[in-house]
């Protein structure tokens, strides 16, 4: 069972992802809708989430920028990108993300990735 934080600007996606994660036996401990919010929430959380599911394209601050900031605060943070834009995979991994899933993803892919990294 992983404690997961979801970072995506699409509110409906938060709902469905949370439901999927619950079905898979995971717990969603945080919701953020842009990179800047994600950093603020991450810093305040105690304990911190086991993994952050990060989108890239968001207003105010994108996923790669937020990833760098979070990792600067906590080098042990585990961030997995879930993005529609596979062209930024290399950028995301260079920013410090552990892995990259291209949307749309099936639940079994997501669960396998969570099992691998948590």
């Amino acid at each position, binding site marked *: 069972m992983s404690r997961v934080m979801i970072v995506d600007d699409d509110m409906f996606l938060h709902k469905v992802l949370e439901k999927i994660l619950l079905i898979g036996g995971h717990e969603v401990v945080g919701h953020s809708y842009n990179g800047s919010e994600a950093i603020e929430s991450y810093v305040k959380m105690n304990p911190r989430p086991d993994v952050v599911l990060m989108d890239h394209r968001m207003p105010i601050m994108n996923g790669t920028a937020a990833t760098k900031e979070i990792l600067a605060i906590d080098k042990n943070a585990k961030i997995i990108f879930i993005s*529609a*834009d596979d062209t930024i995979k290399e950028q995301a991994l260079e920013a410090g993300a552990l892995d990259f899933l291209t*949307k*749309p993803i*099936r*639940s079994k892919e997501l669960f396998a990735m969570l099992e691998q990294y948590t």
Partner: protein
Amino acid sequence: MENLQLLLSIIEGSNDLIQSVEPSGRFEFVNSAWLRTLGYSDAEVPALELKDVIFPGGVKKLKRLIDEAHSGRHVSNVSVTFVSKDGEMIFTEGNLFPRREGSKIIAAVGFFRNVTDRKKTEEELDEERARTEFFVDLMVHDLTNIHQEILSTLEILRLSEDLPHDLESIIDGSLREIERASDIVSNVRKITRLYSMKPETRVHDLYVAIKNSAKRVREAFPEKSLDLSTNISEGQYNLLADEFLEDVFYALLHNSMKFDKSTNVKVTVEVEPLRHTPFLKIQIKDHGPGISDEDKETVFARLSHRREGLGGLGLGLTLVKKIIENYGGYIRVEDRIEGNPSKGCNFILLLRHSTEETTEV
């Protein structure tokens, strides 16, 4: 005298703007095309100086280049923007060279080709390209998010214990259709990028690319097995390519799997460096029904408009060819057994070898 007449008729018959400029900046000579293009009469030219007909932002630079010609140098590949009498910008490309009388340089002669139409077309194409990329990018991003939401919602239903049994196959079918729609969107993005962007190449391990493609193909055909053999190993050969490299091998292996009726599909990948060239020769040989000699001529020539061409079954051989050509490579198809098309295909790729270390992520 005859030679002079000949020279004059060539100069006056040319569509290029030809001028001779004195060190003072005044025009010693301009040809008919110059007058016609810039909208001046012969009588107006003596009163003109160079700065009167050149786009203000380019006057200094052109004066510097003309000074070089006045000092005896030939100056080539000069881009000059003229301004016509009615204020229209005329884009030209040309050369400057000194005109001598005895040992003295008395003028700088310029030959300029009017490229305004070409430049305007290029700018329009660039704008159109940028607009297309923007809308495709937007569409891909937004549609993909919508697909994710629908797919996840269907999965939630599918995983529900209360789901009536007779709805299971319908939901499974819907999930497959969403994945298919998603593949179409993904392929549209790939196609747009193939045709609009220069490839951003980096070093790829050839063996790893083939292995990854084979894995994807096996997942696409769970009811069949792919017996893939190769004479290379990881780390042996690197290529300069972009993210579409695996799509090339995926498309070719996918075709082998699709068209071979047996459940155990055998494909061989043979690689050898071509001596005295920067190329690797990669031969992908299968045991399928092959391609007739007539079809070999056209198999790369048409963009597939069939649903399968975009619907998650690969990019099509035309696009495979485009990807390889973007790398400076080459592809053709022959018979696996020469002269016997029905015994399978041999796709021959020539791709540029790289001696750099891989930058695989």
